[in-house]
């Protein structure tokens, strides 16, 4: 897959330059690193701040979700690389307006180490931090080791719901508890058809034959649960729903939201073909679908593939999901 870029080492800086130039009403850079994005208009004073961070190459994740009713700040690393601890500390500083800051990010080793280090740095500045790790990918560890799972597209539900809770004026403990509840409500699984190329590596992240797919593959090309012949859309959707429903048992009257997410190159046409099965399976289980999300919400540049996220709602989560939010990639209400 070919890419449009200048020098690979400038990829992220130029991307951020273009993004902030295109959407000055949403995003601005903060600090010296050039890798910390914050809201153009700061949130209300006294509001709990929410920061995230992670590698580049996943737009709208992570920086895209900085915005009203969503995140306050984001530290962004090189493609698929964690930002540094200093950058995370900057994001936390920018997001703090005295009410403390929730670190809400995906469960990847480098990110965890760096956010921990960042927390130690800002502790000296009397900023209180809490942490919720997103670990929604069922393919990355069995249920009894769920805390080892990596975070994938499900994180956008946590961003949305925690963001709405913070906007309501809840305190750090309450926002943190809500974010944990949202994180716990989500399960995801992905399937990849083709790799992507990290600009500085110059080579695809993995290789896969023209007639193969990999079920459960991670968004950086981490191996999944099986690799085999490319199946039909209905088979793929069926297996993915099997695996999600095995973890999120549904009964009549349940309310759920579902995210059918393209990993990048896969077009909306194919997502809609898959959604037929998603909807049938959820309705067969007796559930009502609330605000289905179909599109590119968490990607790996030009990787082809999809992920599904199932988010089981209660009244509180549903209200927060439907609350207004606004960023360049997603707006509700």
């Amino acid at each position, binding site marked *: 897959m070919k890419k449009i870029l200048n020098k690979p080492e400038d990829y992220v800086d130029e991307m951020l330059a273009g993004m902030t130039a295109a959407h000055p009403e949403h995003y601005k850079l903060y600090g010296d*690193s050039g890798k910390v994005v914050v809201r153009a208009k700061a949130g209300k004073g006294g509001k709990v701040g929410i920061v995230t961070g992670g*590698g580049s190459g996943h737009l709208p994740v992570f920086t895209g979700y900085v915005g009203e009713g969503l995140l306050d700040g984001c530290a962004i*690393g*090189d493609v*698929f*690389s*964690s*930002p*540094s*601890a*200093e*950058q995370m500390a900057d994001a936390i500083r920018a997001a703090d307006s005295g009410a403390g800051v929730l670190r809400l990010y995906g469960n*990847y*080793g*480098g*990110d*965890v*180490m*760096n956010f*921990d*280090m960042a927390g130690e740095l800002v502790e000296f500045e009397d900023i209180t931090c809490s942490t919720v790790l997103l670990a929604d990918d069922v393919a*990355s*560890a069995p249920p009894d080791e769920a805390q*080892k799972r*990596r975070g994938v597209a499900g994180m956008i539900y946590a961003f949305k719901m925690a963001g709405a809770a913070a906007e309501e004026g809840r305190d750090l403990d309450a926002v943190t508890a809500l974010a944990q509840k949202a994180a716990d409500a989500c399960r995801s699984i992905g399937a990849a058809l083709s790799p992507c190329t*990290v600009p*500085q*590596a110059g*080579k695809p*992240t*993995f290789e896969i034959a023209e007639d193969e797919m990999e079920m459960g593959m*991670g968004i*950086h*090309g*981490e*191996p999944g649960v099986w690799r085999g012949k490319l199946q039909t859309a209905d088979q793929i959707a069926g297996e993915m729903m099997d695996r999600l429903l095995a973890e999120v048992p549904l009964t009549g009257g349940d309310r759920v939201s579902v995210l059918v997410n393209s990993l990048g190159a896969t077009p909306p046409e194919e997502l809609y073909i898959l959604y037929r099965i998603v909807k049938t399976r959820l309705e067969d289980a007796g559930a009502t679908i609330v605000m289905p999300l179909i599109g590119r919400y968490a990607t790996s540049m030009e990787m082809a593939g999809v992920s599904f996220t199932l988010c089981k709602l209660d009244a509180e989560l549903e209200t927060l999901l439907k609350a207004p939010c606004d960023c360049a990639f997603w707006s509700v209400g």
Partner: protein
Amino acid sequence: MTITHDVLLAAIDRITAAMQRDFDRLNAADGALGDGDLGVTMSRGMRAISDMKEDLPDDIGTALFQCAQAFTKTSGSSYGTLMATGLMSAAKTLRGQKAIEASAIPELIAAARDKMQERGKAELGGKTVLDSLDYLASAMAGADDMAAAAAQAVDTALDDFRDKPATVGRARIFGEKSIGMDDPGMLAMQSVVKAAVDL
């Protein structure tokens, strides 16, 4: 042998060159078990150190502290952060010293290993750079030829762990498939150590 400012600078040159040389190899090793960026992390970190070489103070502790910061600033990869954590640990111990005896090194490595273990919340024996450091600390303690012992230790660590499954970091999810494959972080430490001791 005594480690001084000049010895440190010379080692930095050799390690920087080694990381440049091993760029593709480490990316490939990490690509097989992770995200393929370890060559980038190491070459970028060492280049940043190399770039500020002229400004490194004589105080070895402070110099190492600045090396650690170079890693924290250039990279957020696990390995960069672990390197920074280990260097920071040694830096704190050595603050104010302009020369250190080689005999102090095993203990510095053991302390770094412990701090890195805390940071990464991983067990020893998980087939990571921690195991290389563990082997290094043991092998170098009391060795006559510390350089040779160090070079041997990083090889032995790789040999001993090759056929075990990875249980830490991105490589963990490969589980059984990682058996027979070298841990990229251990490979990187092998290159670093051999360049450092010039063997």
